[in-house]
């Protein structure tokens, strides 16, 4: 019995329980995001989308999951087997571990670390490895070209994302995500930093390889890009990872610009709604915009994509850092650094 009352064991069990509470609903959210995508785009294109399996097509994701699981996992003969299998796992793991620092409500966070935003930034910058390893290990020119495109694209947009984050940090004076949300009690950063909010959102589209920046997949020229050789569960892991990343990026945007779990106005009917509900609603709104953008915009050409990242977003967000910090210094509103 002494083993069970050991404080390490109890703490470990508690952490595992918290992780389960986050990861379980996350996977269900991923499943329903795929359904939402097909339904929303269907309606936007005057189609119905999947509506046959279960009421309103609600069981469609489970049917898809079952189909993927019973299919054969194919290892291409020329592939580098170890790296080939490692790549989808890495993508999926990275999409999950970042959730450790996202605050869902006041104190509702697995790890409330000091450098939360840096951790998020670090994990999201690793996503490129899954793609590049998959492309290389597949030993296929389509997959490799897709991976090269993706690597260049993700590295490019990370730079402007970093500068946008600096804008927010200058306003907050802390790297802690809970502190960032608390700093938005008076006004969400989406209003004073509106241009940065837009730049950040567009960069998250590029970072998650979503339309209109889905060149790594570019089915018209690269079949499916870096995961063209994958099948069955290894494909499903890429798929899950991509959608979990979309939700993660929406969560990150919510925390940085839309006030996390805070209600839009601190007045009676709104502030009795629990924080996590607000957080989820805001994430859902951003995810809808993800789908909306996919249904309505044509794909960028690759040189235009690079031009947008390096020649438009990077100088713009760099100048905005100077403007924001200059403005705060001039008005004497620079945050006093806590801790």
């Amino acid at each position: 019995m002494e083993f069970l009352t050991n404080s390490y064991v109890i703490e470990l069990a508690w952490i595992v329980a918290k992780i389960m509470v986050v990861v379980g609903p996350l996977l269900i959210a991923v499943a329903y995001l795929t359904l939402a995508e097909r339904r929303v785009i269907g309606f936007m294109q005057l189609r119905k989308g999947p509506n046959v399996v279960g009421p309103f097509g609600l069981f469609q994701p489970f049917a898809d999951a079952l189909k993927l699981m019973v299919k054969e996992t194919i290892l291409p003969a020329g592939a580098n087997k170890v790296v080939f299998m490692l790549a989808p796992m890495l993508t999926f793991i990275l999409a999950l571990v970042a959730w450790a620092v996202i605050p869902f409500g006041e104190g509702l966070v697995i790890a409330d670390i000091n450098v939360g935003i840096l951790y998020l930034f670090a994990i999201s910058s690793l996503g490129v490895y899954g793609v590049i390893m998959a492309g290389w290990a597949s030993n296929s020119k389509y997959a490799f070209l897709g991976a090269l495109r993706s690597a260049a694209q993700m590295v490019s947009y990370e730079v402007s994302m970093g500068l946008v984050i600096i804008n927010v940090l200058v306003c907050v004076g802390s790297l802690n995500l809970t502190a960032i949300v608390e700093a938005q009690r008076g006004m969400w950063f989406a209003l004073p930093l509106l241009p940065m909010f837009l730049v950040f959102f567009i960069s998250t589209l590029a970072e998650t390889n979503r339309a209109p920046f889905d060149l790594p997949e570019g089915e018209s020229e690269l079949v499916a890009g870096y995961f063209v050789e994958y099948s069955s569960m290894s494909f499903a892991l890429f798929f899950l990872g991509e959608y979990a990343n979309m939700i993660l990026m929406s969560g990150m945007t919510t925390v940085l610009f839309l006030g996390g779990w805070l209600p839009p106005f601190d007045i009676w009917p709104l502030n009795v709604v629990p924080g996590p509900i607000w957080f989820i609603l805001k994430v859902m709104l951003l995810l809808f915009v993800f789908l909306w953008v996919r249904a309505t915009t044509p794909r960028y050409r690759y040189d235009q994509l690079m031009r947008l990242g390096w020649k438009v977003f990077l100088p713009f967000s760099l100048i905005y850092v100077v403007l924001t910090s200059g403005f705060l210094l001039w008005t004497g509103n620079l945050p006093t650094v806590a801790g």
Partner: protein
Amino acid sequence: MIEALFFYMFAGVMLAAGTMVVISRNPVYSVLFLILAFFNAAGLFVLIGAEFIAMLLVVVYVGAVAVLFLFVVMMLDINFAEMRAGFQKYLPLGLAVGGILVFELVAAVYGDAFDGVTLPAATDISNTRALGNVLYTKYIYLFQVAGLILLVAMIGAISLTMRRRVGVRRQVIAEQNMRRRDETVEVVDVPVGAAARTISTVVASKREG
């Protein structure tokens, strides 16, 4: 106890990965092991409470530098036999450099370099703030010089790789947006049956004019 366990795990994996970087036959494996080593170094930083440095290590080295390494290594057409042929030739030099590094490390640890230096007592100042306090005040000149060196390296890299090529058609977005319809499109009223003739004369007159 847990902390010691994690220390030996990070340190052990890091050493193993470091060894694999050197002895892997496939250079792509080498880079992947290098990334693993970086990760475990970040873990060690977290263990001594330097979480800011740990995150920067991951963002800068793993997220950016190693991606470019991997990029280059994957694109290179490497002849493995040729690469191993130089092994004998470079061995003495490699051993000499390694030996000097080991000697310096041993001298630093067992010498008097660390005498009187103790780890700063844990305070409630987060290490982001602690770094910021000295980086922009006490070490401002060194910091600026480091920035300048990076700038020089960047300009050097750009000027080495950029060259003007003739005959390349570039898209100038501003110019394209400035274009008006009447500069590019002409609506012609073509009588029935005369289409081919009219078009050819219009095209011919365009060419001359």
